[in-house]
Structure formats: structure tokens, C-alpha cells
């Protein structure tokens, strides 16, 4: 089990920053630029860890708690999640609720840290973040209900486990397809991606996540970037496991398949970001409610 935990953590810690580079490179290709190196985030993290920081005198210890919890939560949550065919090292019945609520904990402290600065921009970002999550949360539950119904299990390991390839081929393919779409939308919302949020700009009034972390600097900002990369990989794993349920007898090939899935997912995100504009803020709730309804259809499909 210890070995399993170590493999999971190493894989996550080492591979996650690459995804951000791939997204950036994809976007650069679409824009006709050469773009930053694929490993840019690794360099950034190393540099930020060594830097000093500027901390507003308005803030309290809550300001530091936000980045810390934002980094720890994806690390812990990953232990409940199967990485491809690597079983989850710390799986138990009912862990899916803990998984969802851990990310809620991170959201609580990220938003609180943003309010800690007393800046109206960051207050705005915090308000939007918690508002849009309210609309994304029921979708996740519906998607998990569909998977629980199909697998008969109570842990993410079983929900995203062996039953998937049979379920895709059986009559439940359409339902799985629908929740795949829903989970991809949730992934975009939760990781503050276009069309819901723009990860590149700080200062426009339309921003959500980036504006919340405006005042962080140095190692704390590094933690935020690292936490965001880890979160992308953890939530991306949900989507990849669901979309690529095949397993081969060779573990190395399985690992490659899983990592290739993640890379493909990152490229897909890059493509979405390149071909779409950000939605107007008033449209976002409508899209999210629409996604919830799609997940309701998926549940109805498996219940009939």
C-alpha cells in the first residue's frame, strides 16, 4: 500500500505541471506562435519557491491558509482515485463524497483568502467562484449517481473501475457519453478554463480564479500554481478513466495509455480555449444549469 501511495504521489507531482505546458503549447500552435517551453511551469515553480514575497498588511493567517489547503487537497484526493489501471491506494466505501467535499474545503479557503485582502476585485472573484460551484456541484452528484448505478459500488475505485468497458459496450453507452460531456464541462469550470473563466488575464472584471489569487506572491503563489496543476490532473483523471476504460495485460502500456489520455485531454482543453470565446458572465449559470439537466437525462437513461 505504501508503494501504491508513493507511485500515485510521484506520478501526480511530476506529471501534473506538464499538462499546463501542453495546453499553452496547443494554444500557441493555434495562434501561430511558437509558445513557451512545455516545461515552463516546472521552471516557474522552482523559481517561485526560492523567491521572497509581498504580503499585504491587511491580511491575516487565512491568506496563507488558502494556498496551503489548495495544494494539499488534490494530493490527498488523488489517493482515492484510480490512475488508469493503477488501483487507488486508499480506497474505501463512500470515498466519493470525501473526494467532492475535499475540493469544497479548498474552495472555502481560497475564497476566504481572497476576501482577506479587502480588495473589491478579489471579493468579486470569490463571489463568482462560490456561485458557479453551486451550479456545478449537483452535476457531479448526478454523474456519480449514474456511475454508482452502473457499477453497484460505493468507492471511486469501483465506480471508475472494471465495469466501464462492459458498460460502454452494453446499453449504457449513451448515458456514459452524456456524463462524460458533463464532467468535461465541470472540469473546465473547476479549473477556471475558457469558456467559463480566462486563465491568462488578471485584471478584467470578468475574471474569477486568477483575480482571487492576485495578491499572492513567491512560494505561496507557487503553491497556488502547483495546486491548480494538480487539480487539473486529478479531475482530468476522472474524465480520462471514464473515456478510456481499456486495460492491456502490460502495466507499462496501461500507464502509457493513461498518460496519453491525459495529454490528449490537455490538448482538447487547449483546442477548446483556442476556438471559443469566454462566455458572458450572465450566460455561465445558464450553461451550467443546462449541463445539470443533461446529467439528469443520463440518470434517467440508466434508471429506465
Amino acid at each position, binding site marked *: 500500500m505504501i508503494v501504491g501511495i508513493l507511485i500515485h504521489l510521484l506520478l501526480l507531482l511530476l506529471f501534473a505541471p506538464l499538462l499546463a505546458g501542453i495546453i499553452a503549447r496547443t494554444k500557441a500552435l493555434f495562434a501561430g506562435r511558437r509558445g513557451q517551453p512545455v516545461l515552463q511551469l516546472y521552471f516557474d515553480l522552482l523559481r517561485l519557491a526560492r523567491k*521572497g514575497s509581498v504580503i499585504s498588511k491587511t491580511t*491575516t493567517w487565512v491568506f496563507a491558509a488558502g494556498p496551503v*489547503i489548495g495544494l494539499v*487537497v488534490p494530493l490527498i484526493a488523488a489517493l482515492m482515485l484510480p490512475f488508469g489501471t493503477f488501483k487507488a491506494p486508499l480506497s474505501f466505501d*463512500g470515498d466519493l463524497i470525501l473526494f467532492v467535499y475535499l475540493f*469544497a474545503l479548498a474552495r472555502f479557503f481560497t475564497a476566504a483568502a481572497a476576501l482577506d*485582502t*479587502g480588495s473589491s476585485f478579489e471579493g468579486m472573484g470569490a463571489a463568482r467562484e462560490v456561485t458557479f460551484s453551486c451550479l456545478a456541484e449537483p452535476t457531479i452528484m448526478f454523474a456519480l449517481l449514474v456511475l454508482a448505478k452502473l457499477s453497484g459500488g460505493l468507492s471511486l475505485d469501483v465506480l471508475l473501475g472494471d465495469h466501464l468497458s462492459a458498460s460502454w459496450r452494453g446499453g449504457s453507452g449513451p448515458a456514459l457519453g452524456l456524463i462524460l460531456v458533463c464532467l468535461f464541462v465541470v472540469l473546465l469550470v473547476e479549473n477556471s478554463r475558457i469558456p467559463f473563466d480566462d486563465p491568462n488575464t488578471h485584471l478584467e472584471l470578468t475574471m474569477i480564479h486568477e483575480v482571487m489569487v492576485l495578491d499572492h506572491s513567491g*512560494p505561496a503563489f507557487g503553491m497556488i500554481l502547483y495546486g491548480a496543476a494538480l487539480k487539473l490532473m486529478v479531475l482530468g483523471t476522472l474524465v480520462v478513466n471514464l473515456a478510456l476504460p481499456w486495460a492491456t495485460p502490460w502495466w507499462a502500456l496501461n500507464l502509457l495509455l493513461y498518460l496519453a489520455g491525459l495529454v490528449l485531454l490537455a490538448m482538447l482543453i487547449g483546442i477548446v480555449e483556442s476556438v471559443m470565446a469566454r462566455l458572458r458572465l450572465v450566460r455561465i449559470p445558464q450553461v451550467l444549469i443546462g449541463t445539470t439537466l443533461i446529467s439528469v437525462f443520463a440518470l434517467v437513461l440508466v434508471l429506465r
Partner: protein
Amino acid sequence: MSWLLTAVALAGLSGVPGLFMNRYGSGGERIACALIVAAALCGLGAVVQVFYDGDPLLLAWSWKIPGAAFIVRLDALAAFFLMPLCLVAAAGAIYGLTYMAQSHHPENGRQFRLFYGLVVAAVMLVVCAGNSLLFLFAWELMAVSGFFLITADDQLEEARKAGFVYLAASHTGVLALLAMFVLLEQGSGSFTFPAAGLLVAQGGSAAAIFLLGLFGFGLKAGLIPLHIWLPAAHAAAPSHASALLSGVMIKTGIYGLTRLTSFFCEIPFWWGGSLLALGALSAVFGVVLALAQHDIKRLLAYHSVENIGIIALGLGMALVGRSLGEPLLVMLGLGGALLHVVNHGLFKSLLFLSVGSVVQATGTRDLSQYGGLSKHQPLTALLFLGGAVAISGLPPFNGFISEWLIYTGVFSSAGKDVGGGIAILLIAPVLALTGALALACFVKVFGMTFLGHPRSDAVVQAKEAPALMLAPMMVLLGFCAWIGLLPQTLGPLLLKAVGDWNSAALEMPTAMPLQSLTNISVFAWVLLLTCGLLFWWLQRRRHHVVPGLGTWGCGYQLPNQRMQYSAGSFADTIVALFRFGLWTRRHGGQAGGLFPAEEHFACHTPDIVLDRAILPASSGISWLFVRLRSWVQNGLLAFYLLYIALTLIFFLLWFM
């Protein structure tokens, strides 16, 4: 049993010595506090005895009133309601020593303490009564004493109004309960409570019993749309009384429903279904109404409605599980509901007490006046934060554990083909929505109150609360953390209480939830330790910090504290999404022209049921009757003679 009776007697009499003591002296309040703490310890002794011995404590004395008997019965189910009562009552009593010191409140302090003790004693009796008449007696005592807690500050019109609405609602509820107990007596043949699972539900009578119970107990618990008395009452009462009312007293409604449904051997599906529907309504609209409030205590009161909704969802799931014959649903649903009763008692009173310390320091309950209080009240801020994380249902605190139990029930039924299971499945998204909204609300409250810049001068003057107010809150937070970090210690106790409600629920392996609780505990500790470690590392690097700089104003040179995001703007998008059920009133805020003049904006969300339906309806009816009276009783002698003549003719015709 003697433990329990001692506790009731001590609590009930705790305020009496103070009545004979000096108005301005502190002797009476110290005696009252000591007696309440002693009563709480005795109560906890009784709880320990029940769980340790495994048998319910029973006592039966005869009583002169026809049909009544002084039967007191404490089983594990009742113990789950007694536990938070003892903790909250003791914490509130100690907190009250400085929060409402006799020397500062010579006119109402003694009276308040008398009724505080009476409420505690009455709630103890309510959850232990084994006879309908004793139950109603205790229930009335609780309701009336509660009225005096709410109207402690009766020089304020707000408190008098809140007290009146409370009294009217309470007595409407008692009316329904009276009818219910009479019907129950006809079914079981005695006013003594039947043992669990003995009563056969017979068509109309059972349905009437359930509906009357749902109305009467729902009114006390505050299920939407029966919550009308709750927001104003909790806002008007002194904070430690709000903690007692919100943390403990409204749970007697849940206790009543739980006890009532335990009598029946089989449960119709619609009982659970209707409780699920009411629970979902209360959970979602409770939290949305809370988000729209600016008065911090009113906001917390609406969160009580939300949490009662969550408890009702768990209880409804257990009822549905019984009608479908699914013991796992019964176990997880009722287990979650009971644990949430304890949890809500703990974190809600923690929140009310810490808000009390804020209100006392600043002199206002208006959220938009606060800001930056954690600089002035660091410990209060920490305690409030603990309560906020717990009430949002987040790990590693206790709120998560009870919600996890309910969720797990939902997901376990998803895997199986349970008939009518769609009602159960919908609990998960409802709970998820409620949880996310509660999180939004508590980020708002915590951020607006304790973080950022002060929004008014009241905050700048604020001082940290004295140790006697902080200590009881720390104890409450400690219990919250205990349940969150070591939930497996409560597992066996929950199983025992579920067995008291429905023994069939235990005819299945119980390893799954217990093992998972241990795993959750491991995760909670890992989370806490890793965060602590990383936080420590980040703090160690503080010497690299450039000192003395303010928040970056995005290039704007002269930001002031009025420019911060306010409580209203934080919740605005969500409130707008739910405008179909809120009808928020907005005033002003329309700046026009090239050089707009000074402009004000205010928004206000009245209660949907009380302010939008009941008050207009009752004022309409009273207007109608005033008109009718002025038409009938018009002062003309001829008309009165006419009435007499008409009456005589009527009777003449009637008796012919």
C-alpha cells in the same frame, strides 16, 4: 435514573436562588451557572449510563391526573438529543456570566436566568417523557419559558413582536399535538407511549396522526413553510439563548417526529416521501434565504432551517427505507439524522456564541458594518471559522460526517434496484446544492465579518471577548473537531440509537459504515497534519517578506474601505438566480447622467411565508371583520331592536 432526575431538578431550580438575591450582585448568577453546569454533568452521566449499560433507564410513578403517569424513559435515541442539550446548556450558562452579567442587566437578568434553567429542564423532560400528558406538560413548559427567553429585551419592539409570533406559532402547534395524542390514545388504548414498532398503522387514523404530528412538530422544528417564528425569534434573543433555542430546542420537533414514527410497525411510503419533500424545500430555501440576509443572527437562524431540512432528509430516507424494507437505508438515514442533530447543536451554538461576542464588541448585527474583525478579535475569528467550516459540511469537522452518512445511504441505494428509489437518489444533488450554497454563505459571513478592512468605526473600537466567553466556545469547537476527527467512536452509539427506533435495521452487517468512518478519520488526520506542516513551512519563510505594503489596488491609488465587496454584492448572483422564491426588494442604486448625484442602494429580503403570505392574509381578514363589525354594530337603536326581533323569530321557527 437518579442522574437524570437530579439534572432536571437542578436545571429547573437553577434560577430560583437568584430571585432572592441582590439585583445588582453577582451571587445569583454564579449559583445559577453552577447549578446548570452541575445539571449538565448529571445529564451527561445519565447519557453515559445508557450507552454503557445498554438498557434504557426507566422510571414509573403514578400521577393523580386521569390518564397520566410520571413515566420517564431514557433510551439511546433520547440520549442523542440529551447529549447536545447538556453541552450547549452548560456552555451557554458560562458564556452568559459575562455576556449578560447581572450588574449590566439588573432589570431582566434574574428573570432570564430562571427561564433559561426552566427551558433546559423542560427539554430534558420532553426527550425522556414516556407518557403523552407528561410530554405535553413538558412541551408547554418549554414553549412558554422559551417565550421569556426571546423577549428578554422586551423594551425593544422587535423582541416583543418576535415573541408574539413565536407564542402564536407554538400554541397552534400544541393544538395539533393535542389532537394527535388523543388519536394516538384511541389507537393504542393508553396515554403511555407504546413500545417501538407495536402500533399497527390503520388507514385514516394513522394518516391523521402523522399529518398532525408533522404539523405540530414541524412548526417547532421550523420546516419550511412552518418556519415563520424562527428567524425573528433567534435574532431577537440574547446570543446564548439563541444558541439554546436554535441548537437544542427546535430539535425537540425532530425528536417528536422520530419518536412518533418509531411507534408504528409499518410505515406508508408517502410518510417518508412527504418528509423528503419538506426537507429538500427547507434545506435549499433555508440557505438561500440565509444568503439574502444582512442581519447576522437572522442569517444564522435561517441556517437552522437549512439544517433541520438536512435532518428531515435523513429521517425521510430512514422512513422510506422502512417502507421498502431496506435496513441499510434506515441505518444510514437515521444515523445521519441523529448525528446531525448533535452536530448542528454543537456548531450552531458555537456560531451563535461567537457572533454574540462580535455583536457585543461592535454593537450592531448588520453584516455590512463589519470587516477586519480578526485583527481585533483573533480568537473569536478562529472559533467562528471552525464553526463555519463545520456547518458547511466540510472535512475535517463534524458536519461532514453526518452528511456523509446520508450521502452514503443514497449511493448505496443507487447500486441496488430499489422500488421508488428515485426519491432517494434525488437527495444527493439536493444535499450537494445545499452544501455548496452553505459554503457560499459562510465564506460571505466569515469574509465580511472578520477579513478585509473595517467598514465602520464600531469595528475599530472592538475588543476581544473575555476568557469566560471564549472558553465555552473552545469546548464546543473541541467537540466538533472530535466528531470530525474520530467519528468511529460515535459509530456504535449511533447503531444503538437506530436499534431503539427500528430493531429490524440492525439485522444486517454493520461493518461497512464503521470501517469507512475509520478511513475518514485517517484522511482527516492526514489532511490536518499535511496542511499544518506546509503552513508551518510557509510561515517560516516570512522573513523574506517585504514589510508594510497594502493590498494592490490594481493601479488605483486611493482605495477606501467602502469600495470593498459587500455582503449584498457577494450574494447577489445567487439571490438573483433564486429570485422566483425570494422577491428581494431593491431601493435606489440607479446612477444616471454624466455627473451622477449621490445615490444610495439598499436591498432587503423579507420572509416568504410570514411577510408575504401570513401577515397580509391576517391583516386582510382583520380588515374584513372590522368592516363587518362597523356595519353590524352601527349604534342605531332601531337596528339592535331589529336584531332581537330577528333572533326571536329564528328561534320561534327553529323550535316549532
